[in-house]
């Protein structure tokens, strides 16, 4: 099995970008900007909703919008993505409707995942966005399997998988990267290095500070990208995807970015990191940065920006209203989807629960009455 080998050097995004003729065009930049802005607005709203007790958990992605939106937009609709729980930007860039996104925060009757999972653990199969779980890294080896399957089926598609700097320590990072190298799977490993894994800085996550170079251990290329530069993220992803489609195998893309917010609504980041560092990164916010690029190109101005913000804010507000009013998920649904068909022993458990609920006259909580 002859395989093209790299010489182990880590290429920078700049070099990568130069090999692709031109950057993203104005329309693409604008689409990215819009998705990034929407992501930010949702983030701000999500945190508030959680504080107000209207949803129970939320994972912000503030600061990482470029690293998320731009890689997703560089992919084709028939490519697959295994996102991570922080990938709000990714799924919005992919065209998931606002109501579908929001419904999973409530886990109510509108939630495509039927309220089975915590907020931010979404799945949108019709957009080829695979179901997310909490255990860190597990999606990585799965994505490689999907990429191997694409290859076997002769599809000209790629499979991208997104994960954090912390996930590079996981079992599945190692297994997935290794399999991808061995089988030359058309897989893009998108590592959003946001410098923190809850309270652990990346400098203590691994003694190799150049995460992109980890690809070399698996015989393929790693590319370090300025993850707050939407155009660079887009170009690097495009190039890697192009290579993968042509049979050139996998690439590890390290998107260097920063988690501006806390790890989640359950976290207080001031406990473990300096305000200074956060402030420094706030000044590198990818959204004003892309806005400036658009303005420079003469394609954007403050007026248009304000109008866009207003439109998106209203869209979010409307969607929140619509979703929040949706009915709860029914109790009986708890037994569906464990298997394709509910086996007798589970049907029995369902019956016993329904009996109980009938006897009790319902089974409510502070979070509302749940229907059958």
């Amino acid at each position, binding site marked *: 099995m002859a395989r093209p080998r790299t010489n182990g050097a880590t290429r920078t995004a700049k070099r990568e970008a130069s090999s692709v003729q031109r950057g993203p065009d104005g329309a693409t930049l604008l689409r990215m900007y819009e998705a990034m802005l929407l992501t930010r607005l949702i983030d701000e709203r999500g945190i508030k909703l959680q504080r107000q007790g209207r949803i129970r958990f939320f994972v912000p992605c503030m600061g990482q919008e470029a690293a998320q939106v731009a890689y997703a937009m560089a992919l084709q609709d028939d490519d697959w993505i295994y996102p991570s729980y922080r990938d709000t930007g990714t799924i919005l860039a992919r065209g998931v409707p606002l109501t579908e996104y929001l419904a999973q925060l409530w886990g109510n009757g509108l*939630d495509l995942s039927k309220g089975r999972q915590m907020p931010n653990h979404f799945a949108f199969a019709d957009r080829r966005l695979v*179901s997310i779980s909490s255990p860190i890294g597990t999606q990585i080896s799965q994505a490689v399997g999907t990429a191997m399957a694409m290859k076997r089926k002769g599809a000209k598609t790629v499979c991208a998988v997104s994960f954090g700097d912390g996930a590079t320590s996981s079992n599945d990072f190692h297994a*997935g990267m290794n399999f991808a190298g061995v089988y030359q799977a058309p897989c893009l490993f998108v590592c959003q290095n946001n410098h923190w894994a809850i309270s652990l800085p990346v400098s203590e996550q691994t003694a190799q500070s150049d995460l992109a170079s980890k690809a070399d251990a698996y015989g393929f290329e790693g590319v370090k990208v300025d993850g707050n530069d939407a155009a660079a993220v887009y170009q690097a992803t495009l190039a890697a995807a192009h290579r993968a489609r042509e049979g050139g195998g996998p690439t590890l893309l390290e998107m260097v970015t920063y988690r501006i917010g806390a790890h989640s609504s359950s976290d207080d980041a001031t406990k473990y990191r300096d305000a200074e560092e956060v402030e420094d990164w706030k000044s590198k916010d990818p959204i004003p940065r892309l806005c400036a690029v658009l303005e420079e190109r003469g394609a954007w101005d403050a007026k248009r920006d304000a109008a866009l913000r207003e439109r998106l804010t209203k869209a979010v507000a409307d969607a929140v209203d619509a979703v929040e009013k949706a009915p709860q998920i029914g109790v009986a649904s708890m037994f569906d989807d464990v298997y394709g068909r509910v086996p007798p022993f589970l049907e029995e458990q369902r019956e016993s629960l329904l009996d109980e609920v009938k006897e009790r006259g319902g089974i409510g909580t502070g979070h509302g009455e749940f229907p059958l």
Partner: protein
Amino acid sequence: MATLNLIQALNKGLHEEMERNGDVVLLGEDVGRRGGVFGTTEGLQAKFGRERVMDTPLSECGIVGTAIGMALYGLRPIAEIQFLDFIYPAFDQIVSELAKMRYRSGGQYTCPVVVRAPSGGGIAGGHYHSQSSEAYFAHTPGLQVVIPSTPHDAKGLLASAVRGEDPVIFLEPKILYRAVKGEVPDGDYTVPIGPSRIVREGKDVTVFSWGAMVRVCETAADEAAKEGIDCHIVDLRTLVPVDVAGIEEGAKRTGRVVVVQEAPRTCGYGAEVSALVSERAIEYLESPVVRVAGFDTPFPYTLEHVYMPDAHRVLRAIRKAAGF
């Protein structure tokens, strides 16, 4: 009808399923050019090529993880774990991912992966080539757990597993690989996942068992018959979804129950059977539900034959149940 041993039946089943459906792929350590360490996958790579029969790197985590990704995309992966004892590096993928994928996505994704693994003792393999850890999987909602004890059931259950829509942990009692022979129909057939099998009918004592222990129970029953005890033997075959009706019916029939497992006693699947019997048929019981099991020690090497339940030990339990 051909008379095949367990390996031959499985090998034939794998050949047929791969022929039947081009999306069926096989992956695992040494499954290709070596044909598996037991020969179960012999000839498959030569026939179906390296794209469909993949020798993988040494990573069960990678084997099951990539198999899941393949299944999500539409393939039908059969993942081989060389010995059940080596499944633990993949345990997270199995319990957190494989088992929950359909449920957690609200049915948007399905994950029809068959994880095959040789299980159980009897080959002088010590701690790490002998364990029977079916209970871990049986305690994991979302998995189906299957363990055939005859060539006929092995091939038929394998077909059901590969053609089904949900993940299956498919355990192969390795001591039976060459030791058991039986008739296997020539044409296509399946054995459904779920129902248990009545191995022999009897009226005095009901013996529930699965995997390699079924044979041991049969020998014990032969001995018991000489003492005038007529045993009713049920091979569960499928541990999840469990055949509750079959267990209830079997227990009520004699009112005396013995459960035989190879795994360590505490919290094994035998406890589940005992609890089910107690819940559903206690009014019919004439004696305590007697468990025969491996001891609660790691699986030993030189004392393997002492550790594993044999016909004599099962007979003692049958006598105890009968004479209570």
